[in-house]
């Protein structure tokens, strides 16, 4: 019951934020200097076409009416037609959401695989050459541009060694998973570097804490202290950091999808910006913001299950 209440409370919190997000996205197109219709039509703009599009977009109505129309569009999932693809935006976007979500999942898996062992190792052996090695490595990795690392991976593992596809997304689940390995690893590096540093300092704090001393003086085995006390407690803030980073991973996916030619939301966004296809731009931005909000909700709920104290706040 308490769990249910907590989820409900979090959902209610989301509503005002969601509302403001729609206002921001709505204003986005209206802020374009000059007539958005003219810019959207680009070279093809004639006074008649502009007038038709302005009418269609409702640009002649007062702002508040336009915003009402925009909300209605969102609720009825009718996001208009893409100018470049001449298809409904929703139809265009649906298959791409899977790619981007897949990329974020792949990235998260790599972050977990990289950061937990390395962070724990560095923290439990702090002050040793191994620790400084991991620390220095993390610092260097933070300073690397993802688009460059991705390009290097593509060159080495794709073009040279043929271990992974050079671009695209495949047709079957296995092909999808296969083509997400390099992009996932690329996206995971920066976040891993941050979580490794975070986990490392947590482990050092926990190892020197009173409750670990107490557990030891109770005569618990080192293995039990490690599993039940050190690892669990040092993980809590790292998990929070990781969930906060998911928004960044989504942002990073824009660059990574372009590097690996993955047909996801990010690549669509960049392509649509160049094509001035603002109906698509608007919807993609809305989708990405929605994904961030949903991920935040899920992590909050999962977190409240892991650490019951959160619910009492």
């Amino acid at each position: 019951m308490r769990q249910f209440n907590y989820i409900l409370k979090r959902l209610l919190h989301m509503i005002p934020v969601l509302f403001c997000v729609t206002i921001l996205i709505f204003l986005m197109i209206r802020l374009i200097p000059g007539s958005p219709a003219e810019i959207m039509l680009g070279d093809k703009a004639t006074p008649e076409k502009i007038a038709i599009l302005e009418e269609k977009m409702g640009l002649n109505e007062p702002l508040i009416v336009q915003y009402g129309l925009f909300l209605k569009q969102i609720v009825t999932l009718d996001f208009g037609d893409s100018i470049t693809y001449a298809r409904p935006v929703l139809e265009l976007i649906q298959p791409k959401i899977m790619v981007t979500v897949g990329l974020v999942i792949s990235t998260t898996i790599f972050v977990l695989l990289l950061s937990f062992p390395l962070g724990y190792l560095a923290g439990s052996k702090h002050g040793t050459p191994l620790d400084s090695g991991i620390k220095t490595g993390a610092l260097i990795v933070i300073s690397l541009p993802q688009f460059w690392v991705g390009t290097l991976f593509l060159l080495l593992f794709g073009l040279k060694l043929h271990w992974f596809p050079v671009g695209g997304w495949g047709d079957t689940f296995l092909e999808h998973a296969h083509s997400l390995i390099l992009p996932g690893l690329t996206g995971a590096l920066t976040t891993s570097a941050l979580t490794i540093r975070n986990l490392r300092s947590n482990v050092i704090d926990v190892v020197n804490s009173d409750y670990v001393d107490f557990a030891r003086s109770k005569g618990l085995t080192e293995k039990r202290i490690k599993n039940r006390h050190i690892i669990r407690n040092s993980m809590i803030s790292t998990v929070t950091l990781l969930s906060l980073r998911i928004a960044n991973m989504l942002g990073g996916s824009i660059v990574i999808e372009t590097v690996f030619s993955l047909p996801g939301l990010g690549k669509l966004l960049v392509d649509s910006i160049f094509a001035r296809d603002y109906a698509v731009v608007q919807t993609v931005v809305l989708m990405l913001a929605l994904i961030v909000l949903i991920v935040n909700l899920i992590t909050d709920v999962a977190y409240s299950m892991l650490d019951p104290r959160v619910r009492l706040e």
Partner: protein
Amino acid sequence: MEQKDNTSVFEQTEASRGEEAHHIKKKKHFWQYSMSLNIGLVIIVIVLIFAFFPQFIAPYEPNTSNPDAIMLAPSAEHLFGTDNYGRDIFSRVVWGTRIDVAMGIFAMIVPLIVGSIIGLIAGYYGGWIDTILMRILDVVMAFPFILMVIVIVAILGSGLMNMFIAIWLVAWRDYARLVRSEVMIAKHSEYVMAAKVLGYSEIRIILGHILPNVVNSAITFAAADIVMCMLTGASMSFLGLGVEPPTPEWGALISTGRPFMTQAWWMCTLPGVAICIAGVGFSLFGDGISDVLRAKSR
């Protein structure tokens, strides 16, 4: 936030040990606090020399094409090889230093100042100013950083100046949040109470008493933020939304080299080395700054 993560007990104890020694022995010079700072500074000085005097370092003109030297592999004559127009890539990388370093520094400075001022005001006065600010932050935080930047550039049009404006419009949020939370703690401290009792003006309390005590965390964040801003700028140019060709910029150089990946691997790989070196330099500098400020504050 990222800077706080690397605070470790080990480093703290080491720093405090250093501080004890400081009281016993003679005063420490700033370069004795942190090895990272020293290495970072050396790299930054080299990078700055490249940025200020490219004409003395670059062996060729960055934008002059040479039909006789198209896509030559790296050699003694062309250190990083040449591109599809026969331009010397090393020279282009050298000339690009100026733009990328400027992107890192200028994109960071405006949000540092504006964000800190907003954080100071919201944190000190609280009330409705603070409530409105926090709601705006909630919404801005719902978007990934680079997504916001891309969307603003999409509205304003691509180009270096518009990219700066986009980063400025987004990046203040981190400083505002950071400074606000520090101010909330500082304003209840004894020295602020004392200043109030003495009848100092609010401006004097904010600028003279609170600011010096909260500015450290903003500076620590800013030092690490230079790398973030530089990488964001390079990523934007890589996507084609930042610096316009043929201006030599590191991200754009990698991007123009990508279609030729199979024939000329050096075009898309070697310019990245420059970003790495500059990035590591600024990261080490950021780490070092946080070490020094931590040691000094004790």
